């Protein structure tokens, strides 16, 4: 019953949608028959309306909201913003966000580039690439569960003769190496790095795919010329490969940086932002929905927006540069 009802609602939605679009296009056809030429707005109208209602208007309201206090009673100017940059809790959030944006893109890109070069042309290249690429199709929530299981900790007391078996692979490896099991997700500040590993695990495949394509596209004559000049191996990589694919490298780095800046799912699923692991996007959610401070939440959302802009502008510039080639 439930099932039929849900799919029924879905069919209603799809049919309603088809009806609306059908009506719009019918109007266009009729108008065109009558010789009206200005029908473009019927095509663009739905998009324009939805973006206005769904993005522009809410964003404007959030900006306004960020200047008001938690109860939305009093105008407090920039107090929410100064709270982000002065309160000790929020400073940890900023520190973590910076850490994410610095570590995740570089490591993921380095791994992706290394792997792309090594497996290029090798036997079973497609399969080897698929292994690294597949995490891209997995949700952040799924990836977080996978890694939470790797980090899982079982109670351990060195004074006891018999301790429970570790079920997380990482802690078992630590035990095999003669160490003591750790609470990877709880011990600050290192837990942040263990969260970032999940992002690297997901994004390395993206970096590898894009960079591999760029490497394959390097003109053969450049390589040939360099080789005639006696360049090879690591020097080839450094003086030919990297400079030639530099715009693509920058695009990959900035794209992952943007994803890291907005990271929410991983932090939310693995620690909920506890134990000093919160980041701006997660703190926005906490402040808005559980801490009851929508003013601060709004300021955090706006901050996210402001931080993203320069990276994207740089990203687009590089894209243009790489397209112009």
């Amino acid at each position, binding site marked *: 019953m439930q099932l039929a009802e849900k799919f029924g609602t879905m069919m209603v939605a799809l049919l309603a949608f088809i009806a609306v679009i059908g009506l719009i296009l019918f109007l266009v056809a009729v108008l065109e028959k009558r010789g009206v030429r200005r029908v473009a707005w019927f095509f663009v109208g739905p998009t324009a309306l939805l973006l206005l209602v769904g993005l522009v208007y809410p964003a404007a309201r959030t900006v306004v909201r960020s200047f008001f206090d938690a109860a939305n009673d009093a105008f407090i100017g920039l107090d929410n913003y100064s709270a982000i940059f002065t309160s000790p809790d929020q400073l940890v959030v900023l520190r973590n966000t910076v850490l994410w944006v610095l570590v995740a893109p570089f490591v993921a890109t380095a791994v992706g580039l290394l792997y792309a070069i090594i497996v290029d042309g090798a036997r079973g290249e497609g399969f080897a690439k698929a292994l690294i690429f597949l995490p891209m199709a997995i949700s952040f929530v799924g990836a977080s569960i996978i890694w939470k299981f790797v980090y899982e900790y079982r109670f351990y007391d060195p004074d006891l003769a018999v301790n429970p078996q570790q079920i997380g692979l990482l802690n078992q490896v630590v035990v095999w190496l003669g160490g003591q099991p750790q609470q990877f997700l709880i011990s600050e500040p290192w837990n942040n790095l263990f969260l970032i590993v999940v992002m690297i695990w997901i994004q390395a495949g993206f970096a590898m795919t894009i960079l591999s394509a*760029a490497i394959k596209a390097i003109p053969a004559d450049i390589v040939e010329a360099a080789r005639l000049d006696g360049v090879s191996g690591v020097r080839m990589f450094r003086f030919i490969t990297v400079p030639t694919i530099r715009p693509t490298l920058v695009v990959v780095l900035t794209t992952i940086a943007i994803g890291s800046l907005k990271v929410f799912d991983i932090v939310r699923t693995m620690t909920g932002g506890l134990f000093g692991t919160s980041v701006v996007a997660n703190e926005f959610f906490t402040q*808005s929905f559980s801490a009851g401070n929508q003013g601060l939440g709004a300021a955090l959302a706006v901050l996210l927006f402001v931080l993203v802009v320069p990276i994207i502008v740089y990203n687009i510039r590089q894209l243009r540069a790489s397209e112009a080639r």
Partner: protein
Amino acid sequence: MTTTGPQLDLSGMQQPSDTRDGRPATIAEATKKRLSSPWASLVAVVLAVLWTIPTFGLLISSFRPARDISTSGWWTVFTDPNFTLENYELVLSPEGTNSLAPYIINSLVIVIPGVLIPIMIASLAAYAFAWMDFKFKNVLFVAVFALQIVPIQVTLIPLLSLYADIGIAGTFWSIWLSHTMFGLPLTVFLLHNFIREVPKELLEAARVDGAGHVTIFFRLMLPILKPALAAIGIYQFLWVWNDLLVALTFAGSSQNVAPMTVALFNLTGQRGSQWFLLTAGAFVSIIIPVLVFLSLQRYFVRGLLAGSVKG
């Protein structure tokens, strides 16, 4: 999806149109002369193993009895194999406290309109931006392009109160609408890029023959766009299926509306994580996008290339 898409797509354009002429990628070859020592192969194998083992461990665990999962490591199955389908039976059974079936249904109900509606609306707009003339066209296009950078966090709370005002808060409608609105900027932008590559003479010839825009859109444009639509459909599918933030905000945790991601998220939050449910549940939610991705990968790559056949 918000901003990672266009970069992904445009960078994809740098793919060579083909390497079929038998010339292997020479730069990699040259570099490899030095790198393809046994050490390089070792590095590749180590990376591949590191990247695969976490998923493998979860997969193995999902077939182990609940008691075993929480008392011994999954690697012990190699010496002491003990498998069961019980976890999947629990997760997939239509009834029961541990059943995740309602959430799987919700994910499906969310994702189908969540992909079809924005793509249809976007293709209309993209068609107009590429092949029609109207006032404010350029300003509007730049605006749509620029809206890609708006993080959706900025919109959530006002949207939530808007949905409450019109009485669709906590229903599928609010989620469909949100995914449509959030997906539009990127989808319009990408489709516009594809349409721009179609020779304009085709349009002009059809116009001369007396065809209206509606006819051209359906008879000419949509068939040409098929690979592009498939490629963009995969992006949107992955984004909607894997989304947590939108669902958490607008659907809450209700069994009536919340998708798999929310159900799994709630399970991880419970004390003493119920790994027997999490492992099997995570796999059910992972396998669907992976299958879609693998089966449509051809379109994905071809679609990316189609956008790059310019000049």
